C-alpha cells in the first residue's frame, strides 16, 4: 500500500511480501517442471480455463432448477444423484459419488469438509476461499447456526440443521427450497435464483424480489 502510511502499513506490507514469495516459488516450480518435460503449459492453461469459464455453480443451479420443476428428476436425484446429475452432463473429478440433500419446511442442510476442502466440482466448480479456510471448517460442525448468521441466514428454532462433513469421496449438493412467488417459472428462469451458497447451505435461494432489485 504505497498511498498511505497508517498503522495498517506494516500488516499490508507483510502480506504483500509473503505473497510475492509464493508467486516466485510457483513460477520457479513451473519453469522447472516445463524444463524437465513433465508438464505442457498449454494443458495448464486448459485446466485453468475449464474451471474459470466452464465448470462452476451455474451447473448446479441447472440441477436445482430441474429438481424444482421435474418430479421424476427429483425422484432420481433422491435415489441416484450421481447418475441423475451425469444425465445433465455434469460428471467427473470430485463428483464421482454424488448425494443430494433437500431443504424442507423443517430441515436446513449445510455442507463442509472439516479435514480439507472436499467440494462437488462438476456442479459447483472450485470452492471459495472461506470454504477451505479454518474459520468455516472449524465452526460449521460445532456452531452451524452461528455460521449461518454470519452469512445473514436466520433460521426459525423449529428448523433443524443437518450438517454434512465430507470425510470420504461422497460429495453433497444442497437442494434449497423453491422460493414462493415462482409458480409457472421455467427452469432457466428459476436457475437465476439459485446461488452457489444456497447449494452449499450457507444461503437460501434468492426470492423474485431480490433478483428484481
Amino acid at each position, binding site marked *: 500500500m504505497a498511498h498511505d502510511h497508517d498503522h495498517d502499513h506494516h500488516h499490508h506490507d507483510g502480506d504483500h511480501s509473503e505473497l510475492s514469495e*509464493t*508467486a516466485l*516459488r*510457483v*513460477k*520457479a*516450480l513451473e*519453469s*522447472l517442471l516445463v*524444463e*524437465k*518435460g*513433465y*508438464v*505442457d503449459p*498449454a*494443458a495448464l*492453461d486448459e*485446466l*485453468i480455463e*475449464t*474451471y*474459470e469459464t466452464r465448470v462452476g455453480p451455474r451447473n448446479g443451479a441447472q440441477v436445482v432448477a430441474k429438481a424444482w420443476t421435474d418430479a421424476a428428476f427429483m425422484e432420481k436425484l433422491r435415489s441416484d444423484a450421481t447418475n441423475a446429475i451425469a444425465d445433465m452432463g455434469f460428471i*467427473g*473429478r470430485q*463428483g*464421482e*459419488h454424488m*448425494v443430494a440433500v433437500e431443504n424442507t419446511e423443517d430441515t436446513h442442510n449445510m455442507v463442509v469438509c472439516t*479435514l*480439507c476442502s472436499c467440494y462437488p466440482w462438476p456442479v459447483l466448480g*472450485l470452492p*471459495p*476461499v*472461506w470454504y477451505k*479456510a479454518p*474459520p468455516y*471448517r*472449524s*465452526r460449521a*460442525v*460445532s456452531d*452451524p*447456526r452461528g*455460521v449461518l448468521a*454470519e*452469512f445473514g441466514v436466520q433460521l426459525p*428454532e*423449529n*428448523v*433443524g*440443521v*443437518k*450438517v*454434512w*462433513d465430507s*470425510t*470420504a*469421496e*461422497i460429495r453433497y449438493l444442497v437442494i434449497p427450497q423453491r422460493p414462493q412467488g415462482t409458480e409457472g417459472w421455467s427452469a432457466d428462469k428459476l436457475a437465476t435464483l439459485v446461488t452457489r451458497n444456497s447449494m452449499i447451505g450457507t444461503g437460501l435461494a434468492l426470492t423474485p424480489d431480490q433478483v428484481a432489485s
Partner: protein
Amino acid sequence: MNGGQDLGGVHGLGPIDPEIDEPVFHAQWEKRAFALTLAMGFYGQWNIDQGRHARESMHPAKYMTSSYYQIWTEGLIKLMLDTGFVVPGEVHLGRQEVTPRDLHRDPVGADEVAAILAKGGPASRDLDTKPKFKTGSKVRAIRMNPDGHTRLPRYLRGCEGEIVAYHNGHVFPDTNAHGKGENPQHLYTVRFAARELWGADAPANDCMHADLWESYLVPA
C-alpha cells in the same frame, strides 16, 4: 493424524468473512499452482489420499496461516520430492539439476484434459463381504489417535450415532495414504446428534453427518 487439518470444533479462528462476487482465483500464481497440482497428479505416482496426507503433514501453525493454494503448492513439492520427480536444489532455483524421471509417456496435452477430468477417479470398489451394519444401526465411532492419515475426525471419536446410508465399498484412506494398498471397506453415512458431540448447550434438533468406513465403527 491430529494435525492442523483436523479443524472441527476448534475455537478462536476468527470470522468467516465471505467475499462478495469472489473470483475463482485471486492471483496468477494460484491458477498455476492449481493446474500444476492437477497435471502432476495425472501421472498417477501418488493417490488422492497421499496428496491429502502431504498437505496435512505441514506444521499446524503454518497450515492454519497459509492460504489453500499455498498448502497445495507445498504439498505438491513434498510429493514430487518423495517420488523423485525433483530434488530440493531444483525447487529452490527453478532449474533442472538432475535428469528427469523416465515416465515412458509425454505430458498430458491440452486436448486430453477434458477426457481426464470427465473420467475422474471413482473410489468405490466391489466387496465380497457383507456389510456389518445397516440403515438404522446404532454405532459408536472408535477412539484412536493414529499419527498417520485418517478420515475419522477427532470431534467424532468415541461418540454414538446412527447409520443413515450405505455406500458399498470404498478405498480405505488410512492405508492408501501410506502406499499400503486400497483395502476397500464398507462405507456408511453416520448421523450424530449435535448434543452427543457438543453437549447440552447444542440445539436439540441439529445433527452432524460424516461418511465413515466400517473399521471406524463398533456397535453401540
